[in-house]
């Protein structure tokens, strides 16, 4: 019978149906970081359990890592304590830890794929909602809470109900200056931030099929912002080419056999989806959020809505967002002054993101009133970018070039907004207070658009930034 990738992978990992009707799902890869795991390890200790599959468990430190001064002990004593707690837990349980000295440290959703740990057909868990990123490889990847981290550590299993599957077909060609970030922001804007609840999102269509793995990761990463815990793309030659020769990927003949299996997992053309939505890629423009949830966005040449412009159920939300942001209904998005520019996060801090942003900043300088920083997604990304000279381009343009981590996406380290600052950010959430100042304001956009905003000092259409002759 024709099946979706979701059904195939789910069925392969289903151990049994639990008394309450949930499925006991075997977990192929468990990724761990310092923020959501310490309480889980403590409970394991209290109950006398061990880590069931340390060989399928990998850890890194990302959320609280300072990106400017990384010498130990960290100046923030809590950050130091959380790091040493993770080090102790990994040592006690035999879990490989990609820490700062390893040279392989980075945001957990960046290093899993770049190490080849993330593979098609796996079930993947991490105590982090952006675990959906790994779905870009045709894996089923679930963000989980700390009690479930405990479950997975102890049993290598997850108790979970199967969601429905919605295929989102993106057809046609994206215009110049339009990126994967714009595609996912548009999907969230059109379907809404609640639409994905109870669903896994399968991203398909020729526009998705032409995307690189980095771009697919950006799309899958923000599934959760659309309410979907799981998002995935069917594996294809682009996926396999990315994985070949990665450290933890199968090698030689095993890779060939793996590739055949991976290919067989893709959704069958005549499979049945619970829902199908189609988007015209050509209708998507550079997109910017103006409000306090990721669904509140307009194209850069658009204007902010009034409460009366939206569905009745969304009116209070629009009014609350306009008030919090200090914006007026009807004001144009372009021209909104910014104070901070942040290029980073598990959404958009991979090498291709930094390349696109560097193309925009080359030959320009950050506006005098803007502080701008680039935080690579991993040490590996940083090294590759430095090898290409991207760090120099950013530095010469007035950006800070930092060490890898989650940084100002959620401000658990010293990188944060102050007061009412407005931040053009390549991250994933514009919630009130998200970037560290309770009254700070976040505008989500693609890394290229952040770069353009940094230079202009205000939200600006990346398609209109002049390319200096020296670079052109």
């Amino acid at each position, binding site marked *: 019978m024709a099946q979706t990738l979701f059904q195939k992978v789910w069925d392969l990992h289903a151990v*049994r149906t639990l008394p309450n009707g949930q499925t006991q799902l075997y977990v*192929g890869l468990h990724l761990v970081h310092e923020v959501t795991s310490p309480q889980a390890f403590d409970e394991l200790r209290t109950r006398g359990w061990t880590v069931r599959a340390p060989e399928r468990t990998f850890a890194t430190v990302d959320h609280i890592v300072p990106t400017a001064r990384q010498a130990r002990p960290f100046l923030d004593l809590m950050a130091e304590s959380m790091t040493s707690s993770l080090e102790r837990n990994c040592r006690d349980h035999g879990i490989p830890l990609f820490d700062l000295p390893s040279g392989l440290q980075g945001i957990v959703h960046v290093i899993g794929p770049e190490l080849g740990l993330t593979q098609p057909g796996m079930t993947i868990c991490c105590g982090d909602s952006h675990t959906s990123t790994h779905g870009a490889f045709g894996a089923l990847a679930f963000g989980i809470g700390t009690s479930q981290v405990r479950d997975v550590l102890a*049993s290598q299993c997850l108790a979970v109900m199967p969601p429905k599957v919605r295929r989102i077909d993106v057809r046609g060609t994206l215009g110049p200056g339009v990126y994967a970030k714009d595609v996912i922001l548009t999907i969230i804007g059109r379907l809404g931030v*609640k639409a994905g609840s109870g669903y896994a999102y399968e991203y398909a269509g020729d526009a998705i099929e032409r995307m690189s793995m980095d771009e697919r990761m950006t799309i899958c990463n923000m599934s959760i912002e659309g309410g979907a*815990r799981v998002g995935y793309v069917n594996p294809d030659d682009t996926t396999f080419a990315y994985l070949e020769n990665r450290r933890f990927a199968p090698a030689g003949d095993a890779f060939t056999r793996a590739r055949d299996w991976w290919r067989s997992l893709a959704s069958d053309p005549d499979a049945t989806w619970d829902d199908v939505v189609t988007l015209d890629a050509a209708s998507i423009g550079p997109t910017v959020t103006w409000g306090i949830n990721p669904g509140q966005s307009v194209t850069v040449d658009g204007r902010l809505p009034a409460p009366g412009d939206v569905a009745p*159920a969304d009116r209070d939300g629009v009014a609350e967002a306009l008030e919090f942001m200090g914006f007026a209904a009807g004001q144009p998005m372009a021209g909104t002054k910014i104070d901070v520019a942040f290029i980073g996060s598990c959404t958009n801090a991979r090498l291709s993101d930094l390349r696109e942003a560097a193309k925009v900043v080359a030959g320009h300088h950050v506006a005098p009133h803007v502080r701008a920083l680039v935080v690579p997604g991993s040490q590996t990304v940083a090294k590759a970018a430095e090898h290409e000279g991207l760090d120099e381009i950013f530095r010469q343009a007035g950006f800070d070039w930092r060490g890898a981590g989650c940084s100002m996406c959620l401000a658990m380290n010293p990188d944060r907004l102050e007061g009412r600052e407005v931040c053009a950010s390549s991250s994933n959430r514009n919630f009130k207070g998200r970037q560290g100042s309770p009254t700070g304001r976040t505008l989500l956009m693609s890394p290229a658009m952040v770069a353009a905003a940094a230079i202009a000092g205000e939200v600006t259409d990346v398609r209109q930034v002049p390319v200096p002759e020296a670079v052109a």
Partner: protein
Amino acid sequence: MSASKITHVSGRAIILRGDDIDTDRIIPARFLKAITFEGLGDHVFEDDRLEAGRRIGGVHPFDAPAYQGAQLLFVNANFGCGSSREHAPQALMRWGIRAIVGQSFAEIFFGNSVMIGLPCLTAAPEDLAQLMDLAQSDPAAVFSVDVAGERVSGGSLDVSATIPASAKQSLVTGEWDATGLLLERYEEVTATAARLPYIAGF
């Protein structure tokens, strides 16, 4: 560890109006810098409370004297969206909340809540509006959440409030802490893993 059965919760109710209240608002990330969940209850909605307090005559429901000691929380749609941090339901529980009734819940938040024994029930918008109005006009009103019977009552109100069968069963049987179940019949787990090409070897 055996967990207790959760069939009924009763008490006064605190109300938070508005859709899409995310977990960054429930517990801002700076309070996640800890290796235990202790003390989170003091910081639940910290920034929203500060924001409300800055308004003239403003007070956040979690600071309003009339709602201190409330055990129930009434919310609107998509409550708990965003970050998967279990710190969010942990903070609510440690503040004293024992059950939440809302229009809808974000998936990960819902699961995290059930896993720590915090039932989340879904009520129709018009029923929820009535519950909220009663709790607002009479903060002393006592409501009863019947998890097993899937109803919420208070004053003259008695409305349907549903919870998915799996979550209900976990709570009413006291099996909401799943780890023990997942460790039972472990030979089936081993067999499942052994069938996976990436475990068995390509």
